[in-house]
């Protein structure tokens, strides 16, 4: 209970048992509990329709929770209109006001707060300096490139020092190179300004690059909330394992569980040892999760002691420059990927029989798909 009090005090944003339904039949967000600490960069990640954007909209005040409460700095904000919440927001298509100049756009949150003219001017100038667009102050949004508009939207959401900044897929409309550049820029702004950011995206690499913590949404439920590396290395269920990064799935049945490890009989015959992460018990179905880089192709067909070994057939090899992928058929899974160092794919040909090996620690037994 004490520990709970501590997190309560530190949390800037708290979702407590929040539910949301639009049609009264089906919940878009189911029992959401989520704490976001001050200064944290939290990403809500999930496929479309998973409830992540609805969650953000409830936080911004554009949607009202059907049930539960949201606290911002320990004040319930369920019934507070959006303009009183002091939350800056960056929208998917920037939503820069087309009839105002860049300068007027950035000044807007300050002028509605009736700040003095000189202070507005000073703050706008420093905000434009921050995004390196001082020279374009008198242009209109339509005259700017996508990346520039994005930076203006960012400046506009930050210029009034809100206690929280929300970003709704802000980089979705940019091309890959610019997107990666902006990811770093936003990350730097977050670190230098110490702002609290809640970021919504469906792009897992974006989430991994930028976030302190990632909440993976699916079907209205937070599947796992963790640091990026933990999410990748230690997914708690099959959805997270499949959604974050490349994943190889092998279906099987648990034979026994012993000291956190279990022996799993594969559907196609043979058995492997895996970490028992999310299995019901002996006899239960499970899906094993192995990352492609954790698998090696055994040259002599002999696995070292304690390592799982399985026979495989080469389906294809893919050259990707800095590495190569071998697509294998393993235990009925025809899309089993193995990551190889560059050049190592040369010796493999279609239909060739090989053996693969992976350690039990790198194989996680999760809920069946």
């Amino acid at each position, binding site marked *: 209970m004490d520990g709970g009090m501590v997190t309560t005090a530190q949390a800037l944003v708290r979702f407590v048992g929040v539910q949301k339904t639009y049609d009264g039949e089906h919940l878009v967000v189911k029992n959401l509990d989520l704490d976001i600490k001050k200064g944290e960069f939290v990403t809500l990640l999930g496929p479309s329709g998973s409830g992540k954007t609805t969650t953000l909209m409830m936080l911004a005040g554009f949607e009202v929770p059907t049930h539960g409460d949201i606290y911002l700095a320990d004040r319930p904000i369920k019934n507070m209109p959006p303009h009183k919440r002091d939350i800056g927001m960056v929208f*998917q298509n920037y939503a820069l006001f087309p009839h105002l100049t860049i300068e007027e756009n950035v000044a807007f*949150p300050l002028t509605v707060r009736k700040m003095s003219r000189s202070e507005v001017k000073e703050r706008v100038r420093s905000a434009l300096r921050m995004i390196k667009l001082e020279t374009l102050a008198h242009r209109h949004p339509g005259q700017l490139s996508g990346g520039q508009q994005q930076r203006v939207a960012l400046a506009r959401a930050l210029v009034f020092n809100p206690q929280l900044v929300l970003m709704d897929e802000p980089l979705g409309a940019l091309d890959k190179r610019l997107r990666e550049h902006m990811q770093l820029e936003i990350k730097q702004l977050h670190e230098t300004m110490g702002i609290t950011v809640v970021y919504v995206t469906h792009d897992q690499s974006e989430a991994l690059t930028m976030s302190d913590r990632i909440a993976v949404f699916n079907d209205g439920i937070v599947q796992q909330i963790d640091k990026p590396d933990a999410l990748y290395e230690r997914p708690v269920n099959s959805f997270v394992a499949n959604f974050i990064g490349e994943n190889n799935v092998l279906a099987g049945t648990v034979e026994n569980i012993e000291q956190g490890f279990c022996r799993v009989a594969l559907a196609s015959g043979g058995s492997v040892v895996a970490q028992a992460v999310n299995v019901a018990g002996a006899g239960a179905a499970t899906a094993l999760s192995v990352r492609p880089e954790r698998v090696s192709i055994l040259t002599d067909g002999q696995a070292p002691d304690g390592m799982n070994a399985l026979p495989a057939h080469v389906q294809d090899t893919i050259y990707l420059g800095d590495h190569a992928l071998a697509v294998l058929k393993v235990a009925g899974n025809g899309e089993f990927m193995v990551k190889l160092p560059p050049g190592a794919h040369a010796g493999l040909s279609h239909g060739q029989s090989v053996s693969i090996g992976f350690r039990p620690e790198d194989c996680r037994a999760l809920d069946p798909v």
Partner: protein
Amino acid sequence: MTAAFVAGADASSEVPLKRRLKRAERTRRLKALALILPLLLFLLFTFLGPIAGMLWRSVDDWEVRQVLPHTVAALADWDGKDVPGEPTFAALAGDIRTARDAGTIAIASKRLNYALNGFRTIMSGTARNLKTLPEPGTAKDTLIGINPAWGERATWVAIKGASGPLTSFYLLGALDLTRNLDGAIVAAPEEQAIYRDVFGRTFTISLGVTVLCLILGFPVAYMLATLPTGQSNVLMIFVLLPFWTSLLVRTCAWIVVLQSEGIVNDSLRWIGLIDEPLRLIYNRFGVYVAMTHVLLPFMILPLYSSMRSISPAYMRAAASLGASPVTAFLRIYLPQTVPGIGAGSLLVFILAIGYYITPALVGGAADQMISYFIAFYTTETVNWGLASALGAVLLLATLLLAVVYGKLVHGQQVTGGMKN
């Protein structure tokens, strides 16, 4: 590869890029032109032609020139200071005799009567009493003997003023101006000076109708633009419904609704709010109601289309940045609807300026707009010159408005910052 590039560079130095572009685009432009050619011809014959004809009629002065050619020629050198001399009288006598035989005397006397009230009587009396051509040298005395008006300078100034070929008489008349005996432009006599009033009334009513349409149409357009598509489509049918019935039917419906024994008065009397029927029609009120009703769709549609293009994200963004709903509306939403407000207002105003049938049916005598007078002069008195002049003034005012609007919209687009 390199060779081709060099060759390309050579070609560009011989023929300027601009000309090559033009050549490449020429076929396409000709095809486009061919597509609009039928409409262009149609407009030329049905729109531009009649307008040019109307403008011409407002300055054309042919009647006196045709009927009294010798008089016009004799008056060419007249200084207008004194009653002209014998040769002019002789020419007039000859012209009147010829015209009487040809039966064209009425044409000239009608035109001269516009310039000088009572000229018709002078002409017909003279034509009747001038049995034979006067002896040479006695024309002046004979004519003055028939009607002393021939001995007055004003009579001759009227003929001279109407001798064409071009005249400012009608255009001046349309602006309540006239020329005095010395040819200076002065205000028309009070009993004839009605057109400034009528123009003023026309603009007042049109402006009033425009404002009413804007006030009533804005919320409707907003609702249409913000409702889900299915519902807004149903409502849109109601907005467009008036277009499926005739203007005449809609206007007459208002007579049924607003007359003394009409639905509104009967209902009010029935619930006991009034004892005497209110006068709701055949006055300005009726004109405003009926015209606003008829013109409302022309306001709603441009407003709707401009509002439809405003993403709801703007209002959300404004709210997230701290703007209350009222501030967000005034500073973010409203400015973006300005093109729609401008287009709708201009459309309604220009349509209202030309309204004829609705004020004629539901208005009183003091509510008739300029089109009524144009129709009156065209069909009743066949004074096409004045009708054309009134039309020309109206056209000019409308064009002026369109130009002002164009400038405003252009300015809006520049500040609106649309790319390109």
